[in-house]
């Protein structure tokens, strides 16, 4: 089902006219309201009036995660705090998270885009949506929630965790649409099996899965084990949250980007040059309707490509291929963004611990397992087992508190963490998606 027929199937020409009008308005506003953008535009020798066509977008400077950090927490907001009705945050590369804000109209826009996304994934009024994305600072839970209500569906705000209880609720409440991360979907399938519950006997039609990269093989596995049709959803809090792009259940071949609200580009991550359709590179987004937290040419670090061929579903919006990787070292562990540098900060705050560590990520029973290997130097070594075990627990606890992700800490001998050309190999990701 197409939720907003007018906008989602708008002819390209009309769509691009709207994009340009909205882009101009956004540029005028950030130039006037956000010192960061004004300075950046000055440095580049550009004013908003220099952008005379959509194709002039590439002249504007990029915005990076570092820029957001430098303006922590509210420096990038383009409205007074009086007008901000919601704040979300995602992990930053070190201690501080990336903070984003929403006006009442932004929340309305987000709900509209999530209603479109859920409809695109097969949901409609009358469906019961089992929303197992985490509720909180993370945008997943509340993003889906507002969209589900906007669509007129019934939403079960179950959030993440407590898997056995989730299975019971699935049996009793009879939800028809599942929303969660793809790895959690598979985990639900396994726990159900252990409990003797067959997904075939449940009532799911489809699922909208995202917040972490996954593969076509994983989709097939989810569809086979959970007896539902699985679509991919994409979003990031810096741009909006979930709902920036979503697959249609008709084609399941690329995610339609909500182009009446965002302009997407693919660039060469090395040179910053814009790449043509069908070329793989880094995704860059410009928001063109957001009020509280507009963003211009944001480098997502996600690798994808754009396709403009018409889609069988009738939507005219450009499609991005599923994200296949990152241009930085960010890991997504159980839906939580983790940068190795964050783990390093945790370790460095502990007395005597040296920054010789390595992250090993495995997937067991479809749940991500993070092991942090830490080399034991003389300052933390003890002849007593108890002391070393206490240290392991303390590191683990600090990581959990600081990053919100569970990690097993494993102490290792010095110099056992592989160093290539003097640079330690910080991440070993053994997950097969």
């Amino acid at each position: 089902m197409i939720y907003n027929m007018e906008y989602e199937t708008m002819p390209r020409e009309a769509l691009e006219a709207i994009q340009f009008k909205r882009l101009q308005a956004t540029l005028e506003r950030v130039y006037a309201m956000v010192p960061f953008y004004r300075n950046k535009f000055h440095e580049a020798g550009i004013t908003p009036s220099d952008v005379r066509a959509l194709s002039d977008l590439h002249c504007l400077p990029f915005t990076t995660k570092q820029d957001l950090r430098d303006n922590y927490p509210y420096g990038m907001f383009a409205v007074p705090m009086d007008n901000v009705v919601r704040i979300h945050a995602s992990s930053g590369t070190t201690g501080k998270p990336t903070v984003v804000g929403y006006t009442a109209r932004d929340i309305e826009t987000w709900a509209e885009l999530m209603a479109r996304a859920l409809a695109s994934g097969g949901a409609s009024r009358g469906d019961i949506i089992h929303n197992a994305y985490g509720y909180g600072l993370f945008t997943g839970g509340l993003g889906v929630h507002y969209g589900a209500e906007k669509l007129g569906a019934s939403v079960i705000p179950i959030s993440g965790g407590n898997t056995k209880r989730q299975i019971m609720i699935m049996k009793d409440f009879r939800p028809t649409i599942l929303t969660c991360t793809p790895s959690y979907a598979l985990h639900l399938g396994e726990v159900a099996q252990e409990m003797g519950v067959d997904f075939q006997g449940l009532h799911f039609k489809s699922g909208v899965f995202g917040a972490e990269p996954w593969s076509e093989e994983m989709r097939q596995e989810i569809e086979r084990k959970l007896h539902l049709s699985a679509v991919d959803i994409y979003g990031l809090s810096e741009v909006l949250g979930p709902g920036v792009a979503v697959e249609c259940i008709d084609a399941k071949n690329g995610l339609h980007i909500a182009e009446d609200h965002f302009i997407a580009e693919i660039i060469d991550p090395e040179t910053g040059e814009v790449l043509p359709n069908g070329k793989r590179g880094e995704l860059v987004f410009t928001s063109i309707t957001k009020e509280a937290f507009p963003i211009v040419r944001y480098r997502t670090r996600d690798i994808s490509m754009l396709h403009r061929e018409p889609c069988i579903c009738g939507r005219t919006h450009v499609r991005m291929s599923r994200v296949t990787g990152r241009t930085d070292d960010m890991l997504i562990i159980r839906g939580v963004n983790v940068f190795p540098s964050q783990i390093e900060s945790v370790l460095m705050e502990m007395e005597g611990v040296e920054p010789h560590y390595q992250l090993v990520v495995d997937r067991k029973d479809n749940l991500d397992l993070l092991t942090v290997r830490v080399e034991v130097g003389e300052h933390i070594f003890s002849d007593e087992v108890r002391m070393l075990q206490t240290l392991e627990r303390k590191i683990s606890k600090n990581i959990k508190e600081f990053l919100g992700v569970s990690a097993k800490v494993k102490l290792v001998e010095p110099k056992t963490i592989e160093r290539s050309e003097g640079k330690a190999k910080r991440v070993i990701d053994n997950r097969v998606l």
Partner: protein
Amino acid sequence: MRVEQISVFLENKAGRLSEVTRILSEAGVNIRALSLADTSDFGILRLIVNDNDKAKEALKRNGFTVGKTDVVAVEVGDHPGGLHKILDVLYQANVNVEYMYAFVQQSGNNAVIIFRFDNLEEAVKILTQNGIKVIDGSVLYGM
């Protein structure tokens, strides 16, 4: 009245212990006593050797993390109740034993046990007060 013990951090994987013994053997160090405490992930090897400095230096040069701790060597009567007598004295005095292990050689008709205490001074005082023989490091290394 104390004995110096060196401890070595070992990962629980094949060949690590023999690597330590190889290094010590090549450095001409003689092991007098040892104990290995292990968990599922790692182990701690504790050693009493005839030359601490030489052993420590050789192990560190080969990349091991090495620690030094003071422990107490106690003569234990080699007959039923010999060890119990000592432990009972410590228990009565409320002295906590972190860990203990046996020495490989005997001193006369007695066995030697190595003790690691929380409070070494206090433990030695109580042991000697109760007529238990504590062996000094210098004697032990050459035993």
